[in-house]
């Protein structure tokens, strides 16, 4: 959980998937994951179908498998959890290699593992093919309150600046012989966190002054607006619609 925040998942490219407007992609991925979550867990073949759909998208987006799989490491801690479910859950038990496993626990593990993995895979594809800036424009286009989008934009803009300050503080601490070994050093780290907050907040105040100086009155001028044609919407809808067919079949069969 504490790793992975710093590397960006975006992978530059000009594939058809990259060129789709961000809001279409967000809707498509969200609908896809929702369909996946709503699929009965017993329809094992449907999940195989979902995986194939994602592979098709990844091929179209020219995201190399290595890149894709590496980014999916984020779900490792939760895979570990899913593996334990068969031992934890209730219900009739089956014997396997001398282990007593709960049958429903096995199903739960499969359910969480399959849906979670597909969710992460779809999110990684979205992040890999969409620039941060476009993502924000897409969110705004989808009706997220502009103020919230602004907050997100400022956060992303200043994340590196704030992380840099954190890094400098760490180097300054280390240069004076500090190593954090256990809870006894928490006070020092907490002081860094406190200083970081003060610096961040004061920078926020200065940024506000700079914005005022250039005519800010509470709303950001809308310069770019994403637009999507029917063809683009149709292209984006292909993924969730195909998934929906599989899902319905899963419920019916």
């Amino acid at each position: 959980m504490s790793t992975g925040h710093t590397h960006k998942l975006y992978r530059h490219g000009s594939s058809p998937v990259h060129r789709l407007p961000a809001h279409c992609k967000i809707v498509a991925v969200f609908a896809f994951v929702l369909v996946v979550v709503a699929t009965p867990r017993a329809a094992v073949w449907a999940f195989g179908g979902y995986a194939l759909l994602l592979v098709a998208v990844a091929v179209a987006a020219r995201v190399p498998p290595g890149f894709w799989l590496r980014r999916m490491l984020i779900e490792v801690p939760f895979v570990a959890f899913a593996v334990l479910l068969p031992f934890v859950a209730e219900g009739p038990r089956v014997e396997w290699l001398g282990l007593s496993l709960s049958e429903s626990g096995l199903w739960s593990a499969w359910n969480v593992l399959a849906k979670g993995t597909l969710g992460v895979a779809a999110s990684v594809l979205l992040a890999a093919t969409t620039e941060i800036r476009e993502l924000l424009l897409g969110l705004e286009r989808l009706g997220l309150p502009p103020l919230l989008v602004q907050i997100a934009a400022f956060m992303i803009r200043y994340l590196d600046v704030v992380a840099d300050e954190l890094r400098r503080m760490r180097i300054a601490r280390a240069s004076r012989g500090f190593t954090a070994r256990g809870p006894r050093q928490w006070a020092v780290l907490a002081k860094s966190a406190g200083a970081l907050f003060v610096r961040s907040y004061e920078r926020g105040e200065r940024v506000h002054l700079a914005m005022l100086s250039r005519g800010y009155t509470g709303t950001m001028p809308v310069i770019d607006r994403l637009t999507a044609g029917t063809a683009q919407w149709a292209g984006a809808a292909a993924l969730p619609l195909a998934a929906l067919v599989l899902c319905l079949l899963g419920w019916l069969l």
Partner: protein
Amino acid sequence: MHVPDGFFDAPVSLAAGAVAAGAVAVSLRGAKRELDDRLAPLAGLVAAFVFAVQMINFPVGAGTSGHLMGGALAAILVGPYTAVLCLSVVLLIQALLFADGGLTALGVNITLLGVVAVLVAYPLFRLLTKTLPRGRSSVGIAAFVAALVSVPAAAVAFTGLFAIGGTADVPLGRVLAAMVGVHAAIGLGEAAITAMTVGAVLAVRPDLVHGARDLRRPLVLRTTRTDAGVAAASAGVAAAGAEAAPADAVEAAGAAGAGRRSARPVWLAGLAASLLCAGVLSFYASQELDGLERVSTDHGIMEREREHDLADSPLADYELRDVDNGLLSGGTAGVLGVGATLAVGTGVLLLVRRRDRDRVPSATTTGAGPNGAGRESRGSDRGDSRSAPDAG
């Protein structure tokens, strides 16, 4: 505690999404009222801070480390509305850009880590700062308790959602016991760090601690020009006069904090909070626990939290392995938890008190060095416990 996709069924995911959307809408209005057109840049920078602070690893020992979740901290520093916005934005970006936390689980994550944590931490913090004697040590204690309670509260909320739409077939009592037990332990770490971080901000820019704005220091006037400065000086005197009474109160409270008086209410508050936690816990636990043949079970849910601080502590398992009776075991663990909470709380109290006493002669030093570290320098003998890099 970023919940992935597939953990909750679709209706619960969507319903939590609606709750989160409502909370964000309310927070937007509230925060806009507080910050006006400063909201976007300030909340953006605070969100970046929350994001960054989650990258600071707090070593627990033996090579493991945990990090802050930041709900209580953000609420105390910038107020509940802005805190909910900041946490929501952080979770949104983590889900979209880093695939950390599922897209359909975004509502659940915002509800648990943002809304519930803030809604529990902030009122509790305000209540404690109001009832405790005024002063910095009280703020520290209030922050400690607020953060301590907020983490298990989120775990309780998680269990509630699990009861409605969890996809895994695990008995509810067990989920609750494990979640709350583990998170009570995590809460201790969160609480200590939150209290110390709030203390650090309080020492430098007390005006930036939203939850403790009434603790401002009196202004010091140093006008060099006599002619033109008169107006300013008189204005200043008026201001100082207005501030004088509360300022005295602060000093008095600070002095009292170094003495005996403030200790008892803190103890009582801590006891009450802990008992509340333990009470809720054992209520559910006693309804659901059905024996202890499979003690290893609780381990399951906890395993996920391994990377968190304190997961290795004996309380992480919540139930004692050697006790045969489920109820008794749960109860004992609960009592032990309360005891540990109080012990740590008292330790923090003592530390804060000592620090305050140190501070009385030289008021503005930015906090003495880590007393705890200086007190005992028994070098840690763990070979692999090197400092983990802050940024991943």
